[in-house]
């Protein structure tokens, strides 16, 4: 039971952290497609 709680806490912490980072990234207009080549204007210096 303790192990289950520990694993659950780790999963939720990881999920929360990833979601926070993603929302922050998305809110700044950065895409997370991760599948673009260097055609992507994200590579260009503004």
């Amino acid at each position, binding site marked *: *039971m303790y192990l*289950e709680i520990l*694993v*659950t806490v780790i*999963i*939720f912490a*990881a*999920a*929360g952290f*990833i*979601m926070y980072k*993603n*929302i922050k*990234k*998305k*809110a*700044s*207009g*950065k*895409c*997370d*497609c*991760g*599948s*673009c*080549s*260097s*055609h*992507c*204007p*994200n*590579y*260009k*210096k503004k």
Partner: protein
Amino acid sequence: MKTAALIGNPNVGKTSLFNYLTGSNQYVGNWAGVTVEKKEGFLDNKLKIVDLPGIYAMDTFSNEEMVAKKFLIDKEADFIINIVDASNLERNLYLTTQLKEYNIPIILVLNMIDVSESKGIEINYSLLSENLGVSVVPISASKIKGIEDLKKLLLGGIFLSAPTDNDFHFQNEKEAYDFISSVLLKCINKKHSDKKTSTEIIDRIVLNKILAYPLFFLILFLIFKFTFSWVGQPLAGFLSYVIDDGLIPVLNNLLSNSSPWFSSLIINGIVGGVGSVIVFLPVILSLFLGISFLEDSGYMARAAFIMDKAMRKMGLSGKAFIPLIVGFGCSVPAIMSARTLESEKDRKLTALLVPLMSCNARLPVYALFAAAFFPGNETTVVFSLYLLGILLAFTLGILFKSTIFKKDEEPFIIELPEYKAPEFKNLLAHTWDKGKGFLKKAGTLIFSISVAIWFLSSFNFSGMTDINHSILASIGNFISPIFIPLGFSSWQNSVSLLTGLMAKEVILGSMGVIYGGNLRVSLLSNFTQISAYSFLVFVLLYTPCVSVIATMKKEFGNKMAIFSVFYQLSLAWIVSFIVYRLGILLFK
């Protein structure tokens, strides 16, 4: 350690040469504008090579030119490797004459000598070297010919002692081109031949007024066939079988003594959510293998050229085609690439039309629904969705252009590269690049949302509960009436669409958690063929994701971002409604 700047016109093989010299694995494409940032590599740990973006001249001010110019002005390079297309020296040497002004030793690498030879062009290399005051090395990067000679020269460093003072200070373009013509007259012997090159022969068919469009759609259809019928979808089916009938029973067995909530979190939450998306990796890989093939072969530039004519007829600027093509990958970079358009109205119009080009995040949703509801016709169904997006973009383009975005037309110039047989290694690298992005997304965003969805679907404010009384069900029930006229009004579908605002793949992740078990089977009892297609149309047209809204805000301000969200939601609702009602009228 000496530093060399690798510089040349767009699409002359800079990145291919860079990869051969440094052992790097940078993406190489057969169309202009692939390299837009500088990249560094090392030759035998003795020489640093910097791959600069492809540019035509040093006297204009695009981002690419500024990167290259700054590098040379800051004296970061000890010498320049100027790569040129040997079959098109007149245009390529203009940059060379400008590079000479920097008084840095230059090695002139004549690439594609195989192509120039096939065009009957004979070049006197030593005379060219003498006239330009540079070292000349002929190579064929695609055939790995001459690379070893170039490496020896680079590592030997003899060219560094060559005199750099020169008379290459031309007053204007005409003077420079006159000089280039006089040099080429002495150094080049062109055999006049009526024999057409393979590129000319292929272009006579591919760019033929009558054949161009049918061929374009046939090529697209074949790529979809490859993705949804021949390779991608069957492999996705196999992966799904491995997860449903292999992994889940094993996990069930392993977790048989665990608490029910814990086993539900692992199996329904994580495996159900992430697994239902990840099985579509082969679909993504297959589609992008096809697209990489088109890019590397040189066809993609022709596609832009072909579609330019159609777009002008429909009232869109030809230049806007590039952002629209990028939109098939992801709307965010596509909206950003609309910056290249000169008129603000054009930029805004393009940004509003880009999300209608179906981005790759929607692909797994199409793939699952098409396989579940239209077995045997998957290709046609997915192809029809892409066409619907294009058709709506054209229609709305005309509508917007004649109402809120009245403007003048801009010219569209695109270089048509030689056709090349795509390099297998390059195709695989490019395809894997897409697959890696998809896997990363599944392991991060989709994982985290699946966990959140599991929590919201397993609890309410009183504690753990049945899914129909969960917080998620309450949210779903609140928004589901909107979808009643569209035929898919269950709270499960409504809430999945809501989570899709984070990213479109998340729709499947959410459905995987909510419906549980074999998603394909669960969907069959929650949709009809007509409501499934109506759902796919809604997924195609509604607001792509939060990133796109943020990009619209960043590029065009709050008003435009809010307008785009409402316009996309309204468009999605109206078109889905029409599709559903027409479907009922025609097929029931």
